[in-house]
């Protein structure tokens, strides 16, 4: 379990949790892009999303009683974020309503899984809704 942002630097956390993802080539290309994402016609999001590649640490907080499935803290890659949510690339599938804590370079957030999409055998795109957000000092 990672130490909190108060007693450990973010870089240290990243070093302690090596990336185990296998990002497919087409997604690697997409990760180089920056700026606002164009929304689709059927997109029901209320706040715009921005492409924003960066490392983060994801820590399991709470699951569902029928599906406990705890996992060790893992390094993930942030793919995009908005005021209300973000998505990451991760090496495993998470399920809707599971709660996680995410350590970003600029903040710590707790968030709930809202969707998951498989991109490859060890790569899932997981979307989160932010519950709490605390900027790093």
């Amino acid at each position, binding site marked *: 379990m990672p130490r909190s942002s108060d007693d450990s630097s973010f870089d240290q956390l990243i070093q302690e949790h090596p990336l185990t993802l296998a990002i497919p080539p087409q997604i690697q290309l997409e990760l180089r892009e920056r700026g606002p994402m164009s929304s689709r016609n*059927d997109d029901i999001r209320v706040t715009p999303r921005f492409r924003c590649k960066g490392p983060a640490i994801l820590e399991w907080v709470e699951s*569902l*009683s*029928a*599906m406990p499935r705890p996992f060790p803290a893992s390094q993930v890659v942030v793919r995009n974020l908005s005021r209300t949510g973000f998505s990451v690339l991760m090496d495993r*599938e998470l*399920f*809707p*309503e599971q709660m996680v804590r995410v350590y970003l370079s600029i903040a710590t957030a707790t968030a709930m899984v*809202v*969707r*998951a*999409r*498989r*991109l490859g055998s060890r790569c*899932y795109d997981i979307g989160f809704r932010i519950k709490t957000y605390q900027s790093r000092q």
Partner: protein
Amino acid sequence: MTPSGLVAIHPLTLVPNYCAGTNIYIWNEKADATVKFLSSEQMVTESAFSFLLTNPSQKVFVDESSYSSYQAYLFDNLEAWLVEPRIPGILKTAVIAEYFYSQFTVGFNGKSIRSMLDSSSECCKHLEQLSQHMQVNGRDLQRVLRHDASFVTHAVNTAMYAYLIAEGISYSSEMIIEVCVGAMMHDVGKIEPGLLDGTFSGGSTNSTEWMHRVAQSHPIEGFRRMCREPGITETQLLIAYQHHEKLDGKGFPVGLTSTEIHDASKICSVANRYDGLTSEHANRHAMTRMAAFRVMNSEKNTALDSEMIQCLEAAMTQASTN
């Protein structure tokens, strides 16, 4: 089409020497109208039953206002009928199917996930009880099930077909019940949210855009609605969540591939597909059993699991032994 003020029932649920407690009507082709067949006090006679048995397409109805009496007749007698050796297998199958439709309708009308879960658990326990006394036969089942593609009909039919598959691959009794309950609940994500929280105003929700959104999001929505219900299991949640996943990874919502999909979800996918193909839809007629299996066999190993298809096909083509 059902005449106004009447509810269609399955003729084979009228068990000889029992009284349904409600007027029974049949459709008279010559008169082009319904006529009273039995009054509410009359027992079903052997001759009346023989008439229904030899005219399987005969349409039978009860008064809408006394449908609850018919439900009570089913609910009160079900357990006794299931263990009664003189009652033919097809009758027991018809009774259990009608009981399922009635019981799940009660759960659905309870307007909560909890009431639907309770009613589906109750149904599946009876199905398991029935299987201790006889083998539920696919051909009988096809004959007694409704094929109108309504929410309740589809839920019950999918559970019944899932039962045949789970039994075919030798699941334990507990696992069969778990899979059947999950299959009966697999589409709860499609229910208009207002129906569950009491805010539904009765307005139209049939716009193409709304239906497309529901079609895409219902596995996630179903999982989300059920995931905190006491007693729900991982298998049941995954049935709701993964029943539109395909073996080749082209399904939704996650795009999982063959080995990543739970076996119970593969069972539900096959059961769901079969009922979809053999039901009457607004834009497509029901397919025959053989045509449905032709379609499904063309989808094996890309969308559907071949072992599960084989199991269902074997069960649906097996002649009745009861």
